[in-house]
């Protein structure tokens, strides 16, 4: 930016030498102390046997070796990974269909758009508890299932049904958020494309696949990236629906639940929890790169 005005600003600096840093200081301080420093200290702690009240010693990769033999770690990794597999396709496709449904400006549509967004606004704790009650053995969903003759289902007592129910809640809460992202993308799809396709005799399904999907492809990749990272880090839904110990025999524990359970409290194993956190970082970054790479490969 060889802007002459900019160089004049540079001259001001001589009068107020500390001013720019004064502006940035609070933000840098908070970010440094509460985000970047904890990040570095997580990496360092993962190589120690530190506990909440006991400063640790360097133990090399012992924590990571322990991980490999820890059944709970594999359970957590399995559940968090399954969460990505179950949640991401639904969150890429369903909000797009929802966006198509609310795209046309028919009377009352702003009301529907807002109503569909309500689950996003509510706290995950509220949402979790609402669904715990809905899916209860004696709750509304089971009452309805019984009324139509299917009979009651133990959504919250079976290990796999519990995980599936939690995934459904995550999708339910995320629909409105990604719907808004897709609405913005759909607004940029030129109408001429749809009309040309219609003239060529393409029906709605064909137009959806040949016009809409290619036009919002980059948004779909963005949604896939955002939702896969969020899904892998799932904590609250499963914590609330399966309980702090992670369902029957802890079989529904996710990786972040394990981090929370291992690292907090007065006897928390900070070193081991940090090693678990490092796994969370690595998988998160890997997921991002994977999604972005699939994107590039499809393009070429």
């Amino acid at each position, binding site marked *: 930016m060889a802007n002459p005005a900019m160089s*004049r600003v540079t001259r001001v600096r001589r009068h107020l030498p500390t001013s720019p840093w004064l502006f940035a200081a609070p933000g840098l301080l908070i970010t440094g102390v509460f985000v970047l420093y904890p990040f570095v200290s997580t990496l360092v702690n993962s190589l120690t046997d530190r506990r909440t009240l006991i400063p640790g010693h360097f133990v090399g990769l012992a924590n990571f070796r322990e991980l490999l033999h820890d059944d709970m770690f594999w359970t957590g990794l399995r559940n968090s990974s399954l969460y990505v597999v179950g949640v991401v396709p639904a969150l890429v496709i369903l909000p797009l269909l929802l966006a198509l449904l609310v795209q046309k400006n028919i009377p009352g549509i702003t009301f529907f758009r807002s*109503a569909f967004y309500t689950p*996003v606004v*509510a706290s995950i*704790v509220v949402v979790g508890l609402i669904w715990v009650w809905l899916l209860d053995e004696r709750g509304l969903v089971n009452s309805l299932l019984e009324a139509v003759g299917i009979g009651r289902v133990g959504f919250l007592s079976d290990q796999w049904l519990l995980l599936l129910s939690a995934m459904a809640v995550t999708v339910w809460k995320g629909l409105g958020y990604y719907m808004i992202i897709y609405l913005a993308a759909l607004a940029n799809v030129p109408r001429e494309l749809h009309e040309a396709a219609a003239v060529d005799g393409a029906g709605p399904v064909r137009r959806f696949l040949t016009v809409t999907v290619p036009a919002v492809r980059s948004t779909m990749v963005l949604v896939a990236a955002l939702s896969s990272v969020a899904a892998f880090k799932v904590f609250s839904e499963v914590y609330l629906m399966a309980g702090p110990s992670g369902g029957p025999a802890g079989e529904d524990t996710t990786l972040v639940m394990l981090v*929370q359970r291992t690292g907090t409290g007065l006897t928390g194993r900070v070193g081991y929890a940090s090693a678990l956190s490092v796994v969370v970082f690595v998988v998160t970054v890997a997921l991002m790169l994977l999604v972005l790479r699939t994107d590039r490969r499809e393009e070429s």
Partner: protein
Amino acid sequence: MSVVEKVRPAPAPSVPGEARVTDEHGRRIRVWELVLRYALLLVVLALTVGPFLWQLSTSLKGPTEDIFSSPPSFLPSRPTLHNYERVADTIPVWDYALNSLKVATANVVTNCVGSALAGYALARLRYRGRRAATLAFILAMLVPVEGIVIAQFTTMRELGLNNTLIGVVLPGSIGAMNVLLMRNAFANLPYEIEEAAFVDGANTWQRFLRIALPSVKGTLAVVAIFAFMGAWDDFLWPLIVLSDPSRFTLTIGLNYLHGTFANDERLVAAGTVIAVAPLIALFACLQRYFFRGVGEGAVKG
């Protein structure tokens, strides 16, 4: 998928005198399509808002009313606020609400002030290290909070701020993403106006406060709303940092209520309604900022 497939049936004959509803391009929408759209909208409405209404209904049902009946009764036969009184008797729910309000308000103030200042510094001021500062915020934005909560907790202990509301607020008090949002907002302003003010002798503070800041009110509103919502709804961090029940926020208090009185559905329902009602009211008043926030956050995040 059903959305699209069902729209397929061949062109409907245009009925004379049918309602003239048009889409955003001024084309008329056929009646059968309109009926189908509203039918689907109502189904989705029942699925998204229904659970909240069921919770509200449960919270208003008295102790003598059967809440487990099949088929279910959707409306309370004799609505009562009894369960809300019971919540207040069971946990100090109004103190928790006040704690949540304090935390959320503090989060709004610190995020607005801190990210506006830092965003202006990144967008407009020339100084050595500006690139490094921008990079620091970008890196911070990419760090997943879930991966550093344990280290944040030990840091908070070292500062003696664990188990305090200040400790709840501090880590997210100036969000890196908000700083970058403000930076982009400032960078998109035409520079000429500030240049003119500079020629007139305005210093950095004057240009920031009088010229730049009033022009980015929209983005600032987005930051404020998402800071409020984020703090009000947050669960993992307060769960880790707060251990003293007298300092709980609403979300942690609700978790406690559910953990202790899980079998009292009416009570838990009343608690969740207390926690969610303020945010739904806020959302109803300020919808467009919520939607703008999603757009801006998603594109830049």
